[in-house]
């Protein structure tokens, strides 16, 4: 059959292209623009080359923030992934309670970030918050505005509360897709509970877990609102994660050039880690095949 050549289909892509241009490409290019220029005010800019990048790379402040950021993402992944799997394994498989659990677990996911922050900020206060007050009365020294450990514990617990459901729901979907015959065969083969998990459930969940880990990593690496609302980055700089630091620099000090350079490197780091992550996981997947 003769193929008809018709280039009109391009027009169908055009709206999306425009949308992406305005929402992503143009803002990003603005940042690139700032990152290679300097200004003395009055809207007069001149070329600065890679000066800002060099400055940021040698800035201890950025490396510290990056370190804290990696630590934060590492901790929450190390807690949320196993916890999410554990929750998914223990959820009812069908019936009223299954739906009930699903609804209950979706609730935290529906709450806006700044509200989550506010909830925990109040919850943890020693004077009026249920958590802070109780801990204080129990004789535990807990004050997230002054104590680094307390601040970290608060933002980690808050993130776990907010996002473990996501991992659990994805893992649950993976579990539900396993045909009954697998469990039956495992019973016939007298596999222990651990072996059922290791050789049936985990392999079948791998695909969705990969997505869950990637999502949680990217999201936690860019986290801003919740810790900002709770600790404001303090005490000192103890919970100043990358994006908090970035905002401090760009809006607080109005150092647009360095902040733009910082943004771009931030963006590249996320891209890089996600890519490495994805490649490693898919390769693992293939090698097993």
């Amino acid at each position, binding site marked *: 059959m003769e193929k008809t050549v018709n280039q009109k289909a391009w027009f169908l892509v055009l709206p999306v292209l425009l949308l992406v241009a305005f929402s992503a490409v143009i803002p990003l290019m603005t940042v690139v623009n700032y990152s290679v220029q300097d200004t003395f005010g009055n809207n007069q800019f001149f070329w600065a080359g890679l000066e800002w990048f060099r400055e940021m790379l040698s800035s201890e402040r950025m490396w510290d923030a990056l370190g804290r950021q990696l630590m934060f993402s590492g901790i929450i992944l190390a807690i949320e992934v196993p916890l999410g799997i554990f929750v998914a394994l223990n959820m009812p498989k069908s019936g009223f309670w299954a739906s009930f659990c699903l609804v209950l677990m979706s609730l935290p996911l529906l709450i806006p970030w700044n509200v989550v922050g506010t909830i925990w900020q109040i919850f943890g206060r020693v004077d009026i918050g249920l958590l802070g007050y109780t801990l204080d009365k129990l004789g535990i020294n807990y004050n997230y505005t002054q104590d680094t450990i307390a601040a970290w514990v608060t933002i980690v617990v808050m993130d776990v509360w907010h996002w473990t459901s996501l991992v659990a729901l994805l893992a649950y979907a993976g579990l539900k897709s396993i045909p009954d015959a697998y469990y039956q*065969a495992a019973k016939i*083969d007298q596999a*222990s509970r651990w072996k059922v998990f290791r*050789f049936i459930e985990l392999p*079948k969940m791998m695909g969705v877990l990969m997505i869950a880990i990637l999502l949680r990593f990217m999201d936690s690496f860019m986290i801003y609102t919740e810790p900002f609302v709770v600790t404001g980055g303090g005490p000192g700089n103890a919970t100043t994660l990358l994006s908090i630091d970035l905002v401090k620099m760009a809006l607080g000090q109005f150092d647009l050039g360095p902040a733009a350079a910082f943004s771009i490197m931030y963006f590249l780091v996320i891209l890089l880690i996600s890519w490495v992550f994805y490649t490693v996981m898919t390769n693992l997947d293939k090698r097993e095949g």
Partner: protein
Amino acid sequence: MAKITLDNLAHSYLPNPGSEDDYALKELNHVWDDGAAYALLGSSGCGKSTLLNIISGLLQPSQGRILFDDRDVTHEPTAARNIAQVFQFPVVYDTMTVRDNLAFPLRNRGRDERYIAERVQEIARMIGMEEMLNRKARGLTADAKQKISLGRGMVRKDVNALLFDEPLTVIDPHMKWELRTQLKKLHHDFGHTMIYVTHDQTEALTFADKVVVMYDGRVVQIGTPEELFERPEHTFVGYFIGSPGMNVIPARIDGNKAYVNGSYVELAQGYGPLNGKVEIGVRPEYARLSQTDGLPVKVRRVEDVGRHKIIRAEFFGHDINIIAGEDERISADMNRVSFDAAHVNVYANDWRVQGEAA
């Protein structure tokens, strides 16, 4: 190895079964003899898998008891019953190698590695996968997976019974024949009680000492292949066994004559008055086409299937099949059919009626 007794067994998937229709498996009493090979035959949805799952303990029956020899195992878990079962849907552990898959049931029972290695090698030879032992099971073809499932079922020697749920469906015909031979050999060598579910009657008839035919949640007949052929206890058995199946024709019975539309067919035995739906059943093998004997038929088509010919015909408005020998000549003027009286069975409401000597 054990004798398995099903006592008053029935199962429904509903929590509160009411009428008989709610039962996937209707009340059943049966003894599976120790060391016998059974084929379980029946159409889709008749409860074959349900029955196997109850025997292996994957499913708790709604009522009745299961005994292994004289031990009541009704409430014992699968592990305590020591049964091997191969499922309809091939199950392999994706992340393990073929070798580890085969070794899995033995390792879980704590057998020593030397014995395991030996046994795995043996099984791999039986299923023809010796070269693939070190491959990961993921990504193998469907028939390779099914062979692994089968191998895992056969790897333990000390099981009480071996249950196979259509284990050869996706395997190609040649390999199927080969595996069937291996299964028969396994049965011969170890004398396990074996139950083999299949849709395929040739498979059932060649494999088993006894064939159990199920229909709509009920065991309708248990017998040797010959018994099923000669005296189907239920019209379903008649249809299902044989190719083509038994001809079933509505009739009125009077003594030792069966009337079909005013004409009659001689019966070898006499019958009392029968109620309900009355039919006669004649295997195509026992019907003969000729120019002179019997009742009129209209021949529609003659199919030559190699060893014999199948004649498709119309008999007083009913479809019937007649089998003729390969070298028998069929001519256009052959328009009468006669039945071998000794092989005409009488059915009332689908169940065979035993006649009295006439």
